[in-house]
């Protein structure tokens, strides 16, 4: 469980991006943080990912302040997939996944390869293993980036605008695919794509001007 408690973040130029936000992300399921551009949702994601440090409030992971956690331990529990995906272009999909297994978790090449392959199979994208990022489609790259994040078996995966590069049909498939993955990990999706949020998530919040305006079941939030 991730608890965001009265978190505020103001940029160096004085712009308040997140103001007194409190959200509880449950252990299981898909949670959507929705809002228009400039609503503060990406800043919140950066705080959740420990790329930004809130000036006020706390973020707790299973009761522990994430800023007090050991960095590598935290990274292994909370994965991030960026809007631009940032797959490593010089490595194929399998190698993209193996890098952290070998270098962060210290696994042997053989073990890393077997674990990564196992995840690709569970995600039904084993055929992408040998492909380089430039050789696959936007939808496939989105799945590959999630697979890379899942390799470390995190408790939570943060997805930043996952549908920004997908067309409507692919988006629908992708939402379905995510729902099947709920058993593997919990997702926190930051998105302005409300139809997608509705297809993928059960719970969510709607942010505006750095504050949470609505919260609850998606259907209620968007009603």
């Amino acid at each position: 469980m991730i608890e965001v408690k009265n978190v505020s973040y103001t940029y160096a130029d004085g712009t308040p991006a997140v103001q007194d936000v409190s959200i509880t992300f449950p252990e299981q399921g898909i949670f959507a943080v929705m809002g228009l551009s400039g609503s503060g949702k990406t800043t919140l994601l950066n705080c959740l990912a420990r790329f930004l440090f809130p000036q006020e409030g706390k973020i707790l992971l299973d009761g522990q302040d994430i800023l007090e956690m050991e960095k590598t331990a935290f990274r292994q529990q909370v994965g991030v997939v960026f809007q631009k995906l940032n797959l490593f272009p010089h490595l194929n999909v399998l190698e993209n996944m193996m890098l952290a297994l070998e270098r962060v978790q210290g696994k042997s090449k053989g073990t890393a390869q077997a674990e990564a392959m196992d995840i690709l199979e569970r995600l039904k994208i084993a055929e992408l293993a040998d492909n380089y990022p430039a050789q696959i489609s936007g939808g496939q790259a989105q799945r590959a980036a999630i697979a890379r994040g899942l390799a470390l078996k995190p408790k939570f995966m943060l997805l930043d605008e996952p549908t920004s590069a997908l067309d409507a049909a692919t988006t629908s498939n992708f939402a379905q695919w995510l729902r099947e993955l709920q058993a593997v990990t919990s997702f926190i999706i930051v998105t302005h794509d409300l139809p997608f949020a509705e297809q993928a998530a059960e719970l969510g919040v709607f942010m505006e001007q750095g504050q949470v305006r609505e919260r609850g079941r998606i259907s209620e939030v968007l009603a």
Partner: protein
Amino acid sequence: MHHVRIMLTITLAVLAFAGIRPAAAEEEFVTALTGKFPPFSYYDSQGDLAGFDVDMSREIARRINKKSRIIATEWDGILAGLLAHKYDAIIGSMAVTPVRQQSVDFSTPYYHSGAQLFVHRDNPNKVYSISECGGLSIAVVLGETYQHFLEERFPAVKVVTLKSAAEIFAMLEQKRITGFVTDRLVGAWQIKEAGRSFVPVGEMLYKERIGIAVRKDTPGLLRQINTALAAMEDDGTMQRIHQRYFGLAKTDSSALGKMQPSVIAAKLLKGFAVSLGIAVASILLGFILALPCGLLLTFQRGSLKLVHFLVRGIVDFIRGTPVLIQLLFVWLGLGLSPFPAAILTLGICAMAYMAEVIRAGLMSVDPGQDLAARALGLSSLDRFRFVVWPQAFRIAIPPLMNCVVSLLKDTALVSIISIPELIREAQSIISVTFQPRLYYLIAGLLFFAVTFPLMKLSSRLEKNIQAKGFSHD
């Protein structure tokens, strides 16, 4: 005047610094000449140094009980080399002049000659003396006494300065200049031995006494040389050597146009091997230095800011100054031997250009790549090693190849510090075969044989890199 004083101070400082360096090994008598001034110095049919000055050097060394070692170097840097202790004396047909006497001492003259104007046999400009040459192009070798003489006494003459006599002869054969001024004996020898279509016109411009130049701090050596010269005059040795090259009979010394093809090929290949060797060593040195420098250039903020500015200053300075000046500074100013000087200079020069390329490569990697690696928990070293560097390097490969190609071509400059690389070997062959077109073409083709595959490889790598999506938007 102020500038002159500054220049003088810098020169003295450089020379003082160079003076700390030990001179050549004691038992050797190291002398310098150009090797491109037949019949005084040239390469014979076997590719060995020969000529009047060469014989003089060896005879004097024998008489002062030292081992003769002769260095072939460029005329325009020959005095500076002597002052920087690169050799003990210049036995290279150097005329005694008051200006030169200010910086070096001369032996008693070992021959007398004079400056003579030569024109093409067809004499298209119809000139019969130097005073009729106003506005016409008259060539001399850069740094020769003739240059100063013409500029002072005949300012109307358009003085063209070239690197060697061989180039001047070729220019006149092609009638691209009206004539040239050189030593009377040198010109006469060209007409006699090479069947040149030149003729001497007018009186000798002036007479010259030719002496052996030594540093002012070696009066003992000067005494020994003068004693040897006097003895050679007395016992007829001098006359015999003179006869060998300037006798009425055509020189039999296999000099002219008879350099054997195998010798020519060996000289060219040896020269090219020297060029390639220097290039490879410099590129390796440059690349090893460029890695940390390129990385430092990306740190514009933070704790390494000072180091960044230092490296930035060095890189800018090196990229902003001619390689030739750097080369002369390291060779004469820092007193390094020719090969270390060449490799160090070209290596550091390569470093400056490669560091920029590596910096650009690192900067062109999307910052999101580093962020993604951070999100996976990779340490900063691992992020650089496995994520940022492999991408930066792939992006940098094509421009790095360009650096390699241009450095390879820059090796042609090291002839100025007396390294027998390809261009110098080609010039020494041309000075006795008189075929500049052929041998410059061969030298060019040798370079091209190496640079062309490199350029092809570079463009192929570039295509591969683009196909893999390394160029970021």
